[in-house]
């Protein structure tokens, strides 16, 4: 028999996006959603109705950020289309699961991957010939305590645990790729602005990275577009996550910090705080 799922954290979530101080249009998008699969017991002759309790607790949280590229309207269209397609596909097919069987988990991972492929096809449908719009996507589907991560591009995902900030995504940029392959040094990549060119994008060359992290009570999760990390250091992010009183307050503090440092890009922040159950 599968073990009963652990009691989920009380998750405090918030998301915030801002056009910034330089761009005329916001091409970022974010989405926060909960997916619930529940059985509310009314009356039964079963001798052990408590065994059904796990169904009542099954739920998942969806966190997505996307940063569109490809011209004024194109980038916005790409990020919006991708986020909508992801939410639709996951809402319709993946949902959440509460069976801890490894085959079920593999199938769930495949569904998450297919969701990104579906978003990619949808964005490509707008592209026509030549270089069309594209978007980054960083998506976490949290089935407590496991956070499944699908990542494309250079938006980022972090979690904070006991004061230690850890980035669980790797930027998929041409700079990173060429440094990895030994073609250029990190310094050359930075000076040639290769770090600003995506090596993987929804709507472009798609190479999704898949991973997971098991979260704990009191952890904080943060997804953001590069409009934040261009201006706000890891130390500032750590401090905001540690000292913030709510997800909303943390988002506002971080976006404000990015704007005060110049706000050269659209900035989007999504935060989830894993409060222990009461």
């Amino acid at each position, binding site marked *: 028999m599968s073990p009963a799922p652990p009691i989920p954290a009380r998750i405090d979530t918030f998301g915030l996006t801002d056009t910034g101080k330089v761009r005329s249009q916001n091409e970022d998008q974010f989405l926060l959603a909960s997916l619930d699969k529940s059985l509310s017991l009314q009356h039964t002759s079963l001798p052990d109705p408590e065994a059904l309790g796990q169904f009542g607790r099954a739920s998942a949280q969806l966190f997505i950020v996307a940063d569109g590229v490809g011209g004024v309207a194109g980038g916005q269209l790409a990020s919006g289309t991708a986020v909508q397609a992801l939410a639709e596909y996951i809402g319709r097919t993946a949902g959440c699961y509460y069976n*801890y*069987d*490894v*085959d079920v*988990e*593999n199938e769930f*991972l495949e569904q998450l991957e297919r969701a990104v492929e579906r978003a990619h096809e949808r964005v490509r449908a707008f592209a026509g010939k030549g270089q069309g719009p594209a978007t980054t996507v960083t998506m976490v589907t949290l089935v407590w305590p*496991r*956070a499944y*991560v699908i990542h494309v591009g250079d938006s980022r995902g972090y979690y904070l645990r006991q004061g*230690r900030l*850890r*980035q*669980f995504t*790797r930027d998929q940029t041409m700079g990173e790729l060429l*440094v*990895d*392959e*030994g073609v250029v040094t990190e310094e050359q990549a930075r000076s040639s602005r290769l770090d600003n060119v995506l090596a993987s994008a929804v709507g472009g060359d798609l190479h999704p*990275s*898949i*991973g*997971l*992290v*098991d979260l704990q009570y009191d952890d904080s999760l943060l997804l953001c577009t590069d409009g934040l990390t261009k201006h706000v250091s890891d130390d500032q992010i750590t401090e905001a996550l540690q000292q913030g009183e709510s997800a909303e307050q943390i988002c506002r503090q971080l976006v404000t910090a990015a704007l005060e440092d110049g706000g050269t890009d659209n900035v989007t922040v999504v935060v989830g705080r894993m409060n222990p159950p009461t």
Partner: protein
Amino acid sequence: MIQKKVCMVGVSGAGKTSLVRQFVHSKFSEKYHSTVGVKIDRKQVDIDGTEVNLLLWDLEGRDERQTLQASYLRGSAGLIYVVDGTRRETYEQVFELRDVATEAAGAVPSVVAVNKADLADQWRVGEDQLQALDEQGWHRFTTSAKTGEGVEDAFRWLAAATLQGGKA
């Protein structure tokens, strides 16, 4: 198609991610990135006419701040323990890691990859230690994620063992 979850286990910096990258993409990078959580890759292999889809779970390496998280090992069909031949402590810790992993995953087939064969002149794991692994029943491969030496053999051997459900 048959799917098998295989977990990469070892201390931080032993070469787990590089071995997966070499096996899946035939690439190697000198740049080191520590894995956070688990990175998942897939590779399909043909074992005597049977197609097997290997789901490669590259687990964050153990270090002074990070323990091996048993929950990641649940449902594994096979395990690859990675020892860095140039760091004696990675050999010394593999026995303890095996105890933790066996408790979480059960007695599933496993191999030990003694990695960084391309740096053989810098090895701190000697013949005595390698022999000790053999004597304790480990199925051992000498590998180099850089040159590819032994990498395909280690993964394919494990894939075949998971089909047989045998122990290593």
